[in-house]
């Protein structure tokens, strides 16, 4: 289980996360919604240990990300896909994918490369194995980014606005892959602005507002009049997003 308990994170005088608690069970798809600056991305960055916590605890399968010794184990269990892809520009698509399994999991290169090729083929990039990120389109880069996370066989897939930098056509390329992963039972923490898509694939939706988690509801309930829509901020957010 991925457990976020009372997490506080501040940048100087700005409190970005203010006592956030959340639990994600294996097999669940949990979507995090909220306006820009509500702390969604920061929450992901706290879970994968890029940011240090100012309060509270995060554990990934009981490994505490605040403890340096346990962080390494926690990181082996989660895989992150980033908004701006964050690929390694000096490495081919395949090397981007195989680096961490070889270096961190110490798995044999030949085995990892075979899996990497299969992963790229599964997202329609079989012909891009030896291509560098600069030669790929945005959608292709993000598909490599997803493969890179999947190559670690993570128990939890963390998706940080993975389609925000893509045009609608490329967005659908990437969402199709995520939908497939969701059907296969991949556990996902999904930060997004793609509300309709989130509604289709998520089991639960949580809503962040100014660093506070204000609802945590089953998807159907979140979109129901007596559930999420009864909360003025959620109703306002959803109506704004649907207009856009």
């Amino acid at each position, binding site marked *: 289980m991925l457990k976020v308990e009372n997490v506080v994170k501040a940048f100087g005088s700005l409190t970005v996360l203010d006592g956030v608690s959340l639990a994600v069970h294996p097999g669940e798809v949990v979507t995090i919604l909220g306006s820009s600056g509500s702390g969604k991305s920061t929450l992901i960055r706290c879970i994968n*240990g*890029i940011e240090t916590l100012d309060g509270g605890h995060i554990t990934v399968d009981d490994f505490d990300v605040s403890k340096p010794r346990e962080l390494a184990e926690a990181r082996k269990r989660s895989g992150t896909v980033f908004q701006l892809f*964050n690929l390694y520009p000096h490495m081919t698509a395949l090397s981007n994918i195989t680096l961490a399994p070889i270096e961190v999991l110490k798995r044999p290169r030949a085995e990892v490369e075979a899996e990497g090729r299969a992963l790229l083929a599964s997202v329609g990039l079989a012909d891009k194995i030896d291509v560098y990120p*600069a030669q790929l389109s945005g959608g292709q880069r993000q598909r490599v980014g997803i493969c890179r996370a999947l190559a670690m066989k993570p128990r939890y897939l963390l998706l940080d606005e993975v389609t925000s930098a893509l045009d609608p056509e490329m967005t659908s390329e990437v969402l199709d892959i995520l939908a497939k992963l969701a059907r296969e039972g991949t556990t996902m923490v999904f930060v997004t602005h793609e509300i309709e898509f989130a509604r289709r694939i998520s089991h639960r939706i949580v809503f962040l507002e100014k660093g506070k988690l204000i609802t945590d509801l089953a998807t159907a309930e979140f979109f129901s009049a007596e559930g999420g829509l009864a909360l003025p901020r959620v109703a306002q957010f959803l109506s704004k997003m649907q207009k856009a």
Partner: protein
Amino acid sequence: MRYADFTPYDLVLLAQGLGVTLWVFLVTTAIGLVIGLAWGIIRFYRVPLATPAIDFVSEFLKNSPVLVQLFLVYFGVPGLMHVDMTPVFAATITLSANTAAFIYVIVVSAIESVGRDQIEAARAFGLSRWQVLRHIIAPQAIAFSAGPLTALLVNQLQVTSLISVIGVMDLAKIGANLNLRTLKPFVVWTVVGALYYVAAKLVALAGARIEARLRAHAVFRGL
């Protein structure tokens, strides 16, 4: 043949001088590279106390004349510490340290040139600081630094001529001796200058070739 005439043996002397210059250049470059790189890595690991100490030493080496540093090491250090100092040894220490200080600057900026987002991604996937340095930062930083490093080394090759002042028999010193004997400064310094030029050009060409190879995968080649 008069004493002041050029002789074929002068060519041997010039070749020997060039040999000394190149030897001092290569040795001090190698030492400077190791030290400058080590300093850069210490800074990358944010070792407490060590980083400000390195910054202080490197600032001193960058902002004072090499000639002054040379005098300090050759004349100052033996008197203070009661040790013997040969001209070649003093020259090696001084130029190595000076080169290290400038290589340190290049290493630091090359490390910082690598995008934070990639480093964060690698860390999030569990790579250690050392693995990030080795697999993510180093390959890109080396490609980034090839140009500035070549420019620095071309300059450091010229700077070696200062060691002639403390009596090292390098190309400049041979030139000075030849000039005193023949009293034909225009000929002597033209030949000496041409030899430095050829040596520097070879360094620049080698650097350009290495840089081209390192950047082979970069798609963007300028406007």
